[in-house]
């Protein structure tokens, strides 16, 4: 079939003009916050072995990558994620370094298959950070505090919300109901979509249903502030859930004392990405964006894939989603050098014009040469 060369592949786009400048400014602002917390920038390979991502992200997510083969027949992928690669580096390149390691990055990731209809982009730029080798609640709070600073720095104070959960809460419930793998995944989906009606039918069909009166209806609604934890404690009997709720309560205490409880919400029904995360999970929403603009959590099992098991926590922000959002509002005032008006530089002789141009540039002026268009 004849395809005009002017056609752009689905999910790809250009950035230019004000939007490109804004996107650059947002990236710089976020990276400078990461730098302010002593996160060291790391650039990872754009192309890597598919097996790395399959191990790092799980099959279902890695499967979405653009894949192709290397000259020796091994499968490569255009990176669909940065974290896998950072985790490998931590276990290998940085094996000898003192812990904790702090890394940040701004990198484009590529996904051939979209996860949802609304997610049309196949290339998106991730701004992310990873704190590796620290497993405490303090480490969790460190990345949350950075996320808060980033959002405030982008002029989004008051219009963002970060939801918190801990995977142990759900895993404990699955234990409590003695679910096998398939049933666990089915229940996870139903809670994730808050489908109380189907969940009720599902739990009725479980063998141990008699012990869980009222659990179904309320599992999908466990969203709110501190009181949510109390409500959950009354419903959940397993030690695993209880430990997870304790961890969340401790974290919530710190959030309250920082005066940030308005910006945060406990959402025990947020159970996406459970196979990847091992502790805290969080998602970042901003008013005006129809989907989340970022998220993260604790992934203590990831580095074990590369021969060294150690705790890790981190998050990513979607630069393209943030740019879209900020381009529509005008909350964000990038600081630094103001946009200078360009001085036209023309000269009688070519050399004269360039002499003048170089002089002005050396003074830091913004210039535009009077080059004639054809």
């Amino acid at each position, binding site marked *: 079939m004849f395809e005009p060369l002017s056609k752009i592949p689905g999910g790809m786009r250009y950035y230019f003009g004000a939007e490109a400048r804004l996107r650059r400014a947002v990236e710089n602002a976020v990276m400078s916050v990461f730098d302010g917390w002593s996160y060291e920038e790391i650039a990872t390979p754009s192309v890597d072995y598919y097996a790395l991502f399959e191990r790092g992200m799980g099959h279902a997510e890695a499967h979405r990558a653009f894949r192709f083969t290397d000259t020796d027949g091994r499968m490569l992928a255009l990176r669909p994620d940065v974290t896998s690669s950072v985790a490998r580096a931590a276990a290998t390149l940085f094996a000898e370094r003192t812990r904790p390691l702090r890394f940040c990055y701004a990198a484009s990731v590529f996904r051939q298959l979209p996860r*949802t209809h609304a997610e049309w982009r196949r290339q998106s730029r991730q701004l992310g950070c990873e704190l590796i080798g620290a497993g405490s609640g303090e480490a969790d709070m460190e990345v949350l505090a950075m996320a808060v600073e980033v959002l405030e720095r982008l002029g989004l104070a008051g219009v963002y*919300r970060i939801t918190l959960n801990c995977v142990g809460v759900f895993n404990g419930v699955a234990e409590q109901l003695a679910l096998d793998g398939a049933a666990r995944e089915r229940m996870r989906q139903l809670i994730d979509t808050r*489908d*109380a009606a189907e969940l009720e039918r599902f739990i009725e069909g479980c063998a141990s249903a008699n012990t869980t009166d009222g659990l179904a209806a309320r599992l999908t609604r466990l969203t709110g502030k501190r009181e949510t934890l109390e409500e959950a404690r009354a419903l959940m009997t397993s030690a695993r859930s209880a430990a997870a709720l304790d961890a969340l309560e401790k974290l919530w205490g710190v959030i309250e004392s920082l005066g940030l409880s308005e910006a945060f919400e406990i*959402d025990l029904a947020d159970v996406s990405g459970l196979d990847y995360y091992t502790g805290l999970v969080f998602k970042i*929403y901003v008013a005006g964006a*129809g989907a989340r603009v970022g998220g993260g959590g604790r992934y203590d099992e990831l580095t074990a894939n590369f021969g060294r098991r150690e705790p890790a926590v981190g998050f990513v922000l979607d630069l393209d989603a943030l740019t879209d959002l900020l381009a529509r509002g005008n909350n964000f005032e990038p600081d630094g050098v103001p946009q200078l008006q360009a001085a036209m530089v023309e000269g009688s002789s070519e050399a004269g014009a360039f002499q003048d141009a170089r002089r002005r540039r050396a003074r830091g002026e913004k210039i535009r040469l009077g080059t004639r268009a054809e």
Partner: protein
Amino acid sequence: MLTIALAKGRMQDAALGLLKRAGIRVSDEALASRRLAIEDESGRYRFIFVKPADVPVYVEHGIADCGVVGRDVLLEAGADLLQPLDLGINRCRIAVAALSEARKNDSGMLHVATKYPRVAAAHFGARGVPVEIIELSGSVELAPVLGLADCIVDLVETGRTLKENGLAVVETITESTGRLVVNRASYQLKAAEVSELIEKLSKAVAEERAKA
């Protein structure tokens, strides 16, 4: 203000009835007008009327915070949405139907005509039956009659249309009712308004159920 996308057509009246019972009223003048976006009497809700298949699209993109649409449409769309409430309206089922006097098909391949290609493919796929899905946009019942397909996968309410065309339900794939769907971001960012709506509607649903 919450923006709610309502599926035009069969579900619209039932949805508006349920909303009215929940204390959310849309004036008759507003309904009679040809405007596609109207507000309720309190001015706290804005309704947009769109084709059923477009409800998940508007809600997934966050243009509408919530929507009312059939489970059949949601299964087919595969949209990433929250569906916190079964509204119990427009109860029907997605079923496989074939000619009552089935013709023998020896080709080792089942030809299925449907408006629900995803649902049909998933259903037969789970059983390892090789199928050719023939996507149609209406009058699906004609396909087996005219020999385009061996069977159909379609929405069945009373079964009358099937019967009149000499078809009978072979098996039910799943039940479908109207659902309240919510955008993931709105669910967090407009948590108070959304949970108030869910609360009001679930009361209305319980009342309807008690009445029936």
